[in-house]
């Protein structure tokens, strides 16, 4: 029998009454919240260019422009960029804009089975390249700054290696680069994605894409839930109860839920490259990745690079990110680490302003 802590009847009744009150208060609050109260990605922006399902937006300035070179935020295909603009007081976009950056973002859109045959080659050499060219046309800049997030970081570093003449500075955030370095820090909660993907055979991955045509958003969501098994179970009871009587925290919780629920499908052929070429074969750091018939040679990344990673990142372990020193073609390489998680780096109260300040300082010093 499992021993339980001693508690008198009175203490138990008090606890139960308190719990009941919290639940009642939570139900009442949730009933009053409308959809528009949990809007995300509300910072004003304008559509500048689109191609297929991909849209390029330019944010309206919130302060006088301090850095002349525009910056393009490139998110991954696994989640949506809206996480970088979750709410007014937790927004990378707003923080960058308020420090005088000309901020652009590429929205990859919602892929469907019809997009099965899109590859990394298409995303990097067509879509990203077209967006960069559109920015150059609009602003007159010869080069742009790129800020890649997670898989978007892989897109930007590959682009920077293949098109260095168009990239002024490269900023990587929570980006996996050495996909086999996941065991380096020995933390059991880090790197399960790497272990899980390596446990599959190449045939397993091919068969998934043959059946689904995409890597379904629900499927990647379920795999992510395995990274934090108990948190996934307690989220809607214990965790929700913790914040339910604080309106600001509750709205923040719901906005995160909204972002999580909006998990797009990953195009099938690109997913094969992501899982087989990168997670399994680790081709990027070995300079073996090929896009558009060209080798992605990291030594061709000759512009200044800022690499930001999160020490508590259970999705992309820091050891898989901070591996570029000596691997790229520039000495102007800076690493910046934050005590946060993969998503917390962008949305936690603690990291607000730290990431954007690091980015702005780095770019401002290299904007001549």
């Amino acid at each position, binding site marked *: 029998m*499992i*021993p*339980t*802590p*001693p*508690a008198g009847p009175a203490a138990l009744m008090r*606890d139960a009454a308190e719990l009941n009150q919290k639940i009642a208060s939570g139900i009442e609050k949730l009933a009053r919240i409308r959809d528009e109260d949990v*809007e995300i*990605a*509300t*910072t*004003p*922006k*304008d*559509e*500048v260019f689109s191609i*297929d399902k991909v849209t390029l*937006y330019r944010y*309206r*300035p*919130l*302060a*006088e*422009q301090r850095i*002349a*070179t*525009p910056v393009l935020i490139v998110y991954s295909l696994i989640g*949506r960029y809206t996480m970088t*603009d979750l709410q007014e007081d937790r927004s990378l976009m707003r923080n960058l804009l308020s420090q005088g950056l*000309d901020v652009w973002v590429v929205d990859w859109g919602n892929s469907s089975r*019809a*997009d*099965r*045959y*899109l590859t990394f080659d*298409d995303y990097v050499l*067509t879509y990203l390249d077209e967006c960069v*060219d559109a920015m*150059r*046309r609009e*602003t*007159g*800049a*010869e*080069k742009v700054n790129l800020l890649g997030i997670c898989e978007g970081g892989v897109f930007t570093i590959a682009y920077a290696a293949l098109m260095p003449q168009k990239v002024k500075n490269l900023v990587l955030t929570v980006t996996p680069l050495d996909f086999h370095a996941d065991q380096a820090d020995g933390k*059991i909660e880090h790197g*399960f994605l790497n*272990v*899980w993907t390596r*446990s*599959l055979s190449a045939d397993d991955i091919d*068969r*998934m894409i043959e*059946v689904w045509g995409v890597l379904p958003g629900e499927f990647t969501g379920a795999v992510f839930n*395995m990274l*934090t*098994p*108990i*948190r996934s179970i*307690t989220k809607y009871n214990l965790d929700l109860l913790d914040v339910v009587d604080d309106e600001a925290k509750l709205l923040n919780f719901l906005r995160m839920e909204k972002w999580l629920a909006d998990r797009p499908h990953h195009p099938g052929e690109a997913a094969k490259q992501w899982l087989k070429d990168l997670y399994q074969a680790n081709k990027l750091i070995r300079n073996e990745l090929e896009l558009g018939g060209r080798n992605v040679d990291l030594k061709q990344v000759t512009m200044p690079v800022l690499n930001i990673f999160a020490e508590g990142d259970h999705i992309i372990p820091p050891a898989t990110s901070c591996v570029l020193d000596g691997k790229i073609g520039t000495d102007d390489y800076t690493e910046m680490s934050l005590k946060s998680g993969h998503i917390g780096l962008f949305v936690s109260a603690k990291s607000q302003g730290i990431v954007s300040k690091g980015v702005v300082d780095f770019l401002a010093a290299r904007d001549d």
Partner: protein
Amino acid sequence: MSEAPANPWEAFARQSRDMLESQAALTRSWLEGQSKLAEAMGEAQKQGAGSAEAMQDLWRSWFSLGSAFGQAMPGMADSGKVAGETLGRMMDPMSLMLVGGSQVGETIRRLTEGPRLADLGSIERRMGRLMEQWLAVQAAARAYEAVVAGAWGEATRRYGSEMAELQRRGTAPADAKAALKSWLDIANRTLLETHRSPKFLEAQGELLRKGMEFLLVEREVVEAMVEPAGLPTRSEIDEVHRSLQDLKRRVRTLEKSTPKVDGKPEKAAALAAKPARKPAVRKPSARKPRRKNGEAA
């Protein structure tokens, strides 16, 4: 086109009569044949052990043949495989008739009539395979659940030991909240360890594998059913998407390399017309938005 009969009802009644008579004749003939076969078998039994053994051998040979065909059947479903198709033709009774008949006529008949009775076996075989795959998914699911249940069992065991040890030392959690936190921490660690274990990864991988195999066989069954009705199949739509994607890539490559009137490629010309490399500095609300996006993503 043939001429319409003067009295359609009388013509229909006559045709029905003829059909019934011919069916009756066929039935009579089949019954006579069965009766003679039974007599012959009875005679063979009477003639002693040698004949009985021969009869057994004959039956065995039929079973062996049936079994060989049965094993070959799944291969027949694989289109494009010469051996399978050849075996299919070998077993198709219509192919014997085509030797002396009109192949064009048969093809037209097949295309206009849709599935034939001869196809029914094929569908049954596919359904059988589908059921087999479904059972494999269920077996894999049970094996996977057993591993997960084992992890929860282990977490409970660890929690029990931990609490007993803390109580022995007099440092047991003071309240329910602390006890719950301890349980969640232990459960989390146990589940994380399980997720990384080879037996979990193997069981989950097998479930995924069997699930995918089931869905592929299911697609095969559905496609076999909808194709004769002229409905598009998943495989055909995938093929269209692939062609479309290839076409888009080719168009973009052509667009990039197409010379403009001044002889320069379009993209190169657009970039050549760029202003100075230092971009214009923006101020808040200095730029008129070209198009609003409703302020939301």
